[in-house]
Each structure stands twice: as C-alpha cells, then as structure tokens.
C-alpha cells in the first residue's frame, strides 16, 4: 500500500460529535420519564426508561468504537488526552441519565405536587446545557478546518461562556429543587433520600455537559 495513504489516520472528531449527540439525546429522553413521574403514569415511565436504556447503549457502542480508533501513534490536531477526557464527560451524561431513569422506574416514583415545577425547570435547564455543549463539540471540526484561527476560537469561546451561564442556571434550579425537597422532608420520609439523589444526578448531567465544553477551552488554549 501507498505510504501516503497509510499516513492518514481516522480523525476522531466526527465520531466524537456523533457520541455527543447520542449522549445529549439520552439527557433529552429523561424529560418524558420525569413527566410520567409527575402524572403517575407508570407504563409511560417504564417506556421512558426503556428508551433511555437503548440510547445509552448506542452511546456506549460509539464510545468503544472511538476508543478503539485512538491508538497512541496517532498525531492529532486535538490531543488524544483531551479527546479521551471529553469522551468521558459525554459518557457520564448518558450514564447518569440512565441512572435517573432506572431509579425512577424501579421505585415507581411519583413526583410530590410541590416538587413538580422545580424538578421540571431543573430538567429543562440540564437538557439546555447538554444542547449547548453539543453545539460546542460540533464546532470541533470547524476549529480544525480553520486551523484554530482567532475568529473561530473567539466564536467558540463565546459559546462556552453561554454554556457556563446555562450550567449556573441549572445549579440554581437544583438548589431550588433541593430547598423544596427539604421543606417536605418530614412528609415523604425515606423517599426524600431518593429524591435527593434524582435532583443531584440531574444537576450532574448539566455539570458533565459543562465540563465537556470547558475541556474545549483548554484544548484551544494550547
């Protein structure tokens, strides 16, 4: 085979973007789960969990595929370590989304009336953070295409600023949801612990989404 042809490795960027999209879909898929918990429709809850499971599975497959094609001998426009760390964050988004759906479905959790609104606001915020992070990851190929030119870098940095803002909002909403939870703590007994977990996890989804985007900032800087 030709030397020149062998010189080109498979760039991980498009697969990374595909994985981020899959992870983001996972996060989006917990919205129906939360809605089912609010209305108390247990069939819909099970169905929602199944969807999240399938999406998480697909994200996992993409992840393994990417890892397989990231041998150390590749010289990349983006560092291998950065890629792997971003991949880990994206993977965590899907994993934690799966955890939320699983716990909710196993315990047949029904949302207490006062918690409905804060929880929905939190989920929407987490999903928005994931969507913004997905937009940032989608700029990776443009970054390489422009050779990390100043204009494109500035554009991406602005997108990351917005991502940070969205994550802060998710944080506030998580705090709000926790406050509400603690106010009804005595009424719901041990269930409070599980609601605490659900709220924390949804907050974590936003957190991981932010971390993936922040990693891009580091990657631009070097």
């Amino acid at each position: 085979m030709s030397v020149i042809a062998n010189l080109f490795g498979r760039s991980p960027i498009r697969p990374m973007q595909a994985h981020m999209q899959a992870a983001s879909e996972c996060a989006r898929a917990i919205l129906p789960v939360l809605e089912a918990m609010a209305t108390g429709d247990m069939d819909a809850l099970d169905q929602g969990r199944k969807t999240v499971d399938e999406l998480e599975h697909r994200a996992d497959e993409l992840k393994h595929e990417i890892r397989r094609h990231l041998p150390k001998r590749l010289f990349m426009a983006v560092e291998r370590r950065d890629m792997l760390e971003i991949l880990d964050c994206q993977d965590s988004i899907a994993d934690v989304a799966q955890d939320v759906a699983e716990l909710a479905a196993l315990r047949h959790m029904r949302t207490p009336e006062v918690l409905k609104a804060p929880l929905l606001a939190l989920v929407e915020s987490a999903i928005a953070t994931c969507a913004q992070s997905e937009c940032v990851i989608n700029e990776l190929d443009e970054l390489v295409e422009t050779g990390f030119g100043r204009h494109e870098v500035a554009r991406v940095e602005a997108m990351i600023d917005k991502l940070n803002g969205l994550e802060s909002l998710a944080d506030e909403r998580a705090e709000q949801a926790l406050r509400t939870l603690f106010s009804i703590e005595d009424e719901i007994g041990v269930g409070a612990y599980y609601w605490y977990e659900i709220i924390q996890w949804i907050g974590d989804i936003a957190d991981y989404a932010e971390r993936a985007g922040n990693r891009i900032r580091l990657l631009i800087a070097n």
Partner: protein
Amino acid sequence: MDVGFFGIEVALALGAALAFYMAWAIGANDVANAMGTSVGSGALTITGAVLVAGLLEFSGAFLAGGHVTNTIRKGMLDAVLVEQNPELVLYGMLAALASAGTLLLVATRYGLPVSTTHSIVGAIVGFGAAGLGVDAVAWGKVGQIVASWVTSPLIGGVLAFLIFGLIRNRVLDRDKPIEELTKIGPFFFFYVFFIMGLVTLFKGLKNLKLDLDLPEALAASTALGLVGAAFGVVLMRRASRRAGEMKDDADQFRHVERVFVVLQIMTACAVAFAHGSNDVANSIGPLAAVHSIVTTGAAATTASVEPWMLALGGLGIIIGLATWGYRVMETVGKKITELTPSRGFAAELAAATTIVLASRMGIPVSTTHILVGSVLGVGLARGIGALDLRVVGSIFVSWIATLPLAAVLSVFFFYFFKGLLGS
C-alpha cells in the same frame, strides 16, 4: 570495445527494457503518491489526475530532468575510473537497473515503502564499490545525497507549516475568507509559475538548445509568472463567483475549500512536473550511461540524454499509470479524505518547491518522503485531524534497509551481467 558472446546491441536492448520497466513501476506506484493527495481532496478525478500526471510528468522529465540524470549517470562515481573501465560501468548500470527493478517488484508485492531513488543510488554505490573499488565511489557526493534524504522532508515540512500558517492568517481566519483567497490566490500562481520556470529555464533547456543565463532566465520566469498570475486571476474569480452563488453561511468553509480546489489543481500539476524532473531520471540515468558507452565506447563523454530515452521513460510512466497507477490512486484517494484542498495545496506547494530545487541542484531525492514531510508539516500546524506516525517509522526503516539491500543486489547482478556479456 571488446564485447562478449551476445554483442553490444543486446546490452542496449536490455538496458532499454529494464529502464522501461522502472518507468512503468514509477508510473504504477510513485505517481499515485504524488497525485493521490489531489484525488483524495476531490480536486481532481481519477481520469483528470491520470491526464495531468501523464502530461506534466513527461514535461518535467523532458524539460528539467537533466540534472538528476547527470548525477545518476556519472556524479556518484570517480570520473577517471569510470573513463578507464567503460565495460564495467556498462554491466554496473544494467545491474543498477535490474536490482532497483527487483526491489520495486518486491516492494509492490509486499507493500513496503521502498523509494525508487534510494534503490538506484544504493545500487550504483554497490556496483561501484564492488566492481571499480571502494575508492571509485564519490563518497562525498553520496553522503550529500543521503543527507538530503533527511533534510529534504524536513524542508518540505517547514515550508508546509509556514504556508499553512499563511493560509490560516490570511484566508481562513478572516471575515470574508473567499474574497481574501481570491485576492491572494494569483500570488501563489505567480510563485509556482516563476519557480517552475526558473528551474527549467536557467541553464536547463540544453535539450532544446536553449541556454539562458541568470538574468535572461529571471526575466523569462517573471514573464511566465505574470502569465500564470493572470491565468490565476481569471480562474480564482470564476471559482469564487460560483461559490458565492451557493449562499448558506453555515457551511462557508466548504465554499472556501471549493475555491481552494483551483489552487490545488495548480500545485498538483507542479508536483507532477517536479516528480517527473526528479524521478524519471532514476530510469533514464542508467540507460543514458549504457547508451553512451555502447555508442561511443567511452563512459565519461558528455553525450546528452537522447530524446528517445525521455520518450521511453515518459511512455513507461503513462503505461504504468494506465495499467495499474489509476487503481493505486483510487485507493490512496479514498484513504485520505481528511486532506481538504487547502491542506493538500499547502503540502503540495511545499513539496513541489523542495523537489524542484533539489533536482535543480542535481540531488536525487525521494518525492514520496518529501510529500510525507510536507503533510506532517501541515499536521504540526494543527491542520489535519489525525496522522498515523507509524509511517514515519516505516520510512526510517526503509532508509536503513533499502540502501544496503539495493547495493548487495546490485553486486550480484553486476557479476551476473559481467558473466553474461563480458568477454
């Protein structure tokens, strides 16, 4: 000259056949490396690449290939000893062609990155040391050539790094990249036409009985560059107008790349020209030596390369391309889709410049290795998604292995031809 059982014509026919085979192998394999970058980026179709390659490889060999041919023909061996032993040089040159051809055959069969240039140089050193004595080899010249195998990919890499940096700052990183590219493009046209013109015209066209001195060559090259630039203005404007008609800002970079296609086709031509000027000599050089010995009975006369030899080399390359090369090109093209026209342009411009300057100095270099160096240069500038560094390792191995292997093979063939043709 004393000839053996078979007669001198047999030696010449054998030389021509071996040279033709070498040219065929170059067309079948090497050209794909030079043109594959353009096919991969979508700048040229396979058919287009074959046509461009055929035409420009031939022109490069014919117009600018003389210097490397001379080095291979007589530059690496002691002139006096060569003159005294024409028949040994005759067997040696046949042996060089045969051993380089064998290596190429094996390399193609097993997919090893063996360079035609390195095989020929190794083979000539081999028979020179064995047949004429160790002192007959001009070790200084050989050392210079071997050193250039390290420096030329480095120079190609640095140039590619700089050119890509320039493209980034002047085009990709601007608000209106297409307009910037349309403005800057003609300068690249000027540069390429000027450089190709200069290396060709400055004491280069002895084949055409046209011997220009430096001021004349500079003037003529500048004129050629200006013609090229004018040509560039027209082509760039047309391409950017067409890109402008497809307005969707989200994919602006894809439009920029479409305009880069024009520049990349131009540099692909330059690489084909440079490749012809450097690599065709690998087959023609030994044949020219054989021919001059057979016809004049002496080895060191300044008999120039005959047009029929260049035609033979050119024809060999075209047939190699048509029978096998297009398939290799297709494979190369499919595997390097990561290389967009802007990157291909930067790598090719750097490679073409390095190759023509080296061959103008009479230094046989490996076109493929310089291209690899140039692509790595673009990669170092963070321009390419992923490069497989294993190739660099395999190139080092081929540097270490090809020379002695070609030398040993050539010694074997030397005694074989001496026994077959010698008296």
